[in-house]
Each structure stands twice: as C-alpha cells, then as structure tokens.
C-alpha cells in the first residue's frame, strides 16, 4: 500500500495525518508540542503509521507545515500553514470559501477557490491576542480547563465586556471581573465575543464569503464558534477534524507532489 504523510508542527500542538493513495484518511494523531515539536512529530509519525497499518517504506511522500516545518527531519518538503489550511479546509468542508484558522499563536483568514487554492489571506499582527494561547491563559485565570469553556459559555446570562484583546491586559480585566463577583460564565462569553470580534475585523480585510468554516484547535470550542457565527451573521461549518486541517492539507499536498512525480 502507498501512503502520504502530513505533519503540522504548531506552536501548541503537533498533528499528523496519514492518507492512502486515494486520499482517504488512514490515521490521525495529536499531541502537545512542548519544547521540542520535531521530536514529538517523529514520535507521532511512528504512532500514526502503526495505527494506519503502514510501514515507513510505504510512505512515499511527507510534507511538513507549521512553525516547526523547517526542522522536521522526517519530511521530504515543507509548505506554509496558509496553503495547507486552505487545502485541508476544502477537503473537510468542500463548499468552504472562507477559512478562519485560530491556532495556538496566530489567527488567519483565508479566502479560497473551489479547488482549495489561496485567493487572499490575512494574519493577525505580532501579538497573540485572540488566539488559542489567549484562551488558555484566560481559562487558567478562571480556574477552568479549556474544554470547560464551551459548557460555561452556554450558561451565560449577560456576557461581561472584555475590551482589551491584549493577553496580559485582558487577564487583568478577567481578574477584576472576578473580584466584582461577575459569574464566570458571563466572563467566558465576553472573552469569546472579544476574540470573535477581533478575528472578524481581520476577516473583513479579505472579505467574508460563505460558506465560512473554522479550523485549528480553537474551532473545537463551541462557545467561540457561536460567538463568531453571531458576529458574522452567518453559519460557521466546523468539521470534527478541524484541528487536523493543517496536517491534512499537508498530506494532500504530499499526495499531489507524488502524483506529479509519477
């Protein structure tokens, strides 16, 4: 059996996807990136191959993406996250024309054509505001696990405004809300609204065309997606594999390279 590998070494998590020669997903693995993403990637590749039932010699092309893409020894080539997320999102949500990816340390908005090619894109500026890391810091300040944010969001009565999207300043706002006895659910809803507003302002730079899909780890947070959908006034389609979009896109590019080579 021939197979392709996509490896996404992100700032917070490493994702690996194995595709067969027809582009079917055989395996997917994910783990925190820690301090040595490439080492985590190497381990995940072994695990994913075992899960897929392929041996390394059957992997005919491997493509890396994400922050650690340049240091991935198991990859044959590397591609940017933008190109990979576009491809992966198109695969997961075939009608998608706008992709909002909110990852660990950056957020990006990509407009794509029907083949998943990048038409235009924009990324957040230098700071980590409105990213996965932002939510992690806020969850910590609230004494919550990241998974709990969605549940609390659903219980919000009146979202507490969080005006600053600077991670450090927003954390002080959260602490001051807590000091004033604001329910945590309302703070969570306020935080999600703040991120959604910021990402949407970014999206408007490239134009928000339906169907809108969301990828990256933060896409799995139901509260954020609800806030985004409300702010954008359109449905947001999210695949259960949203966090794998980058790795999946890399694997699809690997498959294309392989086909071209033949």
């Amino acid at each position, binding site marked *: 059996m021939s197979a392709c590998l996509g490896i996404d070494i992100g700032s917070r998590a490493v994702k690996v996807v194995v595709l067969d020669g027809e582009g079917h997903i055989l395996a997917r693995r994910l783990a925190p990136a820690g301090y040595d993403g490439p080492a985590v990637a190497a381990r995940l590749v072994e695990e994913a191959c075992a899960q897929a039932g392929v041996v390394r010699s059957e992997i005919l092309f491997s493509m890396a993406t994400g*922050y650690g893409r340049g240091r991935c020894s198991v990859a044959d080539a590397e*591609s*940017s*996250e*933008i*190109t990979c997320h576009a491809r992966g999102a198109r695969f997961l949500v075939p009608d998608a024309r706008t992709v909002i990816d909110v990852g660990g340390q*950056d957020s990006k908005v990509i407009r794509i054509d029907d083949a998943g*090619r*990048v*038409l*235009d*894109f*924009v*990324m957040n*500026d*230098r700071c980590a505001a409105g990213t996965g890391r932002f939510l992690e810091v806020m969850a910590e300040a609230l004494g919550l696990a990241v998974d709990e944010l969605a549940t609390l969001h659903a219980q919000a009565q009146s979202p507490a405004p969080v005006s600053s999207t600077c991670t450090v300043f927003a954390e002080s706002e959260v602490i001051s809300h807590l000091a004033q006895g604001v329910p945590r659910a309302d703070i969570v809803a306020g935080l999600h609204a703040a991120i959604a507003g910021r990402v949407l302002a970014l999206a408007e*730079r490239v134009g928000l065309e339906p169907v809108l899909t969301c990828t990256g780890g933060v896409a799995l947070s139901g509260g954020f997606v609800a806030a985004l959908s409300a702010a954008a006034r359109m449905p947001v389609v999210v695949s259960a594999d949203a966090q794998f979009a980058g790795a999946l896109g890399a694997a699809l590019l690997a498959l294309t390279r392989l086909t071209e080579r033949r």
Partner: protein
Amino acid sequence: MARNYPRLESGAELTRLMIDHYTQALAPRTRPVAWITSGAPVELLRAMDVLPVYPENYAAVCAAQGAVPLCEAAEALGYSRDLCSYARISIGASATPQIAPLAGLGRPDLLVACNNICGTVVKWFQALAQQFGVPLFVLDTPFLPDDAIPPHALAYVAGQLEDLVRWVERTTGRRLDRARLDETLSLSNAAVALWREIRHLCRVRPSPLSTPDLFVTMAAIVSLRGTPEAVAFYRLLRDEAAQRVRQGVSAIDGERFRLLWDNIAIWPRIYHFFSQFARRGACFVADTYTGAWDVEIEPGEPIESLARAYLGIFLNRSLAYRATRMARLIRDFACDGFVMHSNRSCKPFSLGQPAVRRRVAAATGTPGLMIEADMCDTRAYAEEPIASRVQAFLESLEERAP
C-alpha cells in the same frame, strides 16, 4: 545566506560620494549646514550655498548598522516607542553621539521641515531646534484630497517659499542667486530624469535592477539632488543598468515573478528580507517609495514650479490617488502581485493600506500581501510570522502561475 543579487559596479562610486557628503556635513564650517526633511525644497538652499543634510538618510544609514540602542536612547529621554524610528534615531544620536555611527551627525546651523511627508517632522525638528538652540523654518503643505492642485494651495506654498528665501537670507546672510537657482534646478531635473530612466529600465523582463538595488542607490537622489555629482552618478548607474539589459543580466537569478513594493525599505534587513523572495524567483521591479523623488520641477517661474513639485508628492495625496498610481505601476511593470510593508514608523504611508490593498487587488486582479515591520526598529520585526506570510504568498503565486 546566498546572495542572489549580482553586485552593482557603480555602488563603489556611491559609497565614495556619500562618505564625502557626510565628511562635509561634519567638517569645520565653510558654509552653513541646514538639516532638512526628505521632502524639503533643497534647490533653494543649494542656490544660497547652504549645505543640506538629511537626518532621515542618516537614520537609514544608522539602521543598516543596527540602531536599536539609538532608539532606546530617545525612549530613555521619554520619547514614545510609537514615534517614528527615524525621529528616535535622530534624537537619540543627537543626545548620545558617542554611541552613534560617525559619532553623530554633528550640529546644524538651521533647520527646515516640510510637512508634505508627515506631521511628525514638525515636532521632531522642533525638538532638534530646542536641543541645538538653532532656528527652524516649517513649510506647511496642505494635503491634496483630489488629483488637481488647487490654486489657493499653490499660492499658499509659493508664499511660504518666498518667506523661506528671506528667512535663510536673514539667518545666514547669504543671498539667493537667481542664476545659481536656475543651474541647481536644471541639475536637479537632470538627476531626476536619469533616476526615472533607471527605474523604467526595470520594465524589461528580466529586470536589470530590483527594488533593493534602488533602495541602496536612492541615497544620491535624496541627499545630493541639485549637484553635478548626483547627475554623474546616475549616468554611471543608468549605463550599468542599460548594459545589463543589453547583456541579458538580471537583478536576481531566474526571474519568475515580478512584484511591486509599497512603503519604505526595512533598512536593517534589506537583502535578508528580499532574499526570501529572490530565492523563489520573485523580483521586485517597482515600488512606491523611490519614485517619490521622481518629481520634475517644471520650467517657468521657479518658486511656483517648486511649490507645485513639493505639494504634489505621493504621500501628500489621497488614498484613491495612491491606489490608482499603484495599479498603473503594476500594469506598466507587468507585476504579478504586490507587497505592502505596514511600517510601524511611517503613519502616513501605512494608515489606509488595507483600503488601498483592496482597491489595487480589485483593479489589477493581482494578489497583495501585507507584512508588519518597521523601517529601522528591529524590535518590530518578527522573523517567523513574516517568513510564514512571505512563503504562503509565494506559494499562492506559484499556484496561480500557468
């Protein structure tokens, strides 16, 4: 890092000229030294035998060698980190010349600031005036919302140019010599015409020069405009570029994509930054910055012609005008896309870029990338996010290519 750029033979002559220029600026006085802004009417000063020196050019020279300590020196005095890095470097170098290249820029005898490029220069030069205790002339050029230059704006600026002449005469005791002004104007125009010719040679495919080459060689059109030396240098450069065209020598190896650059250079990373593009066959063939000195002073009454020239520069124009100009450059130079430097320092250049980007992309059908950095302050340059954006942009160009 591999340098994909063949070296310019004429570069050595430019280095010699600039060393000579700064030596004169720092030498014991044989004539008054005026520190002026890049959009100031230098021809009048030259015609009165005043030596013009550009703190902006000096700041770029400092930045190429690493100017964060000079920025920090200004910040230690209380200047905001959000202030233009040229201003911070200039103020920092004036306050702590011992850590500045050339041991500082010396001292001016007079200052001339023209706000056609930005509002910051007014306050920056006021700070210098206070620091050195020297007189300052502020030339106020109203912003042009439409393409045409209204007569009242022209009359207003022409009146101030007359005032400037009287002010310099009073301050320095030198008279404006009309014959010398005519000669300076024709030297200025000759350099401008050559500069235009050089830039237009980049329409050839493959382009003989690239934007980083122009960024380096523009020093003379800024600092030496109106002198015979500038004309001689640009003849040399023009001949070299024309020879490259004849011999089919290109600015980068294997030109595949042609791009337009918007905004000031990232001086401390100039070749490093552009190499990311050159390595994948993308050559910058046009830009909106070096063309700011492609301004001819029309024949006729010199004061009015100068007023027209210095009022009408790119940065003193509306976003619509700028978008139209960029779209025309993209067409004329057959560009496949454009890159906008959102320059933390330069507010007039950078504010409104998202709107210009949309308009230019819609008008030309070419994609535009925006990257965030600073012309001098490397603390505002985030290596990995920039590399990611550049790579993604080039990948999207490759996907578009037939």
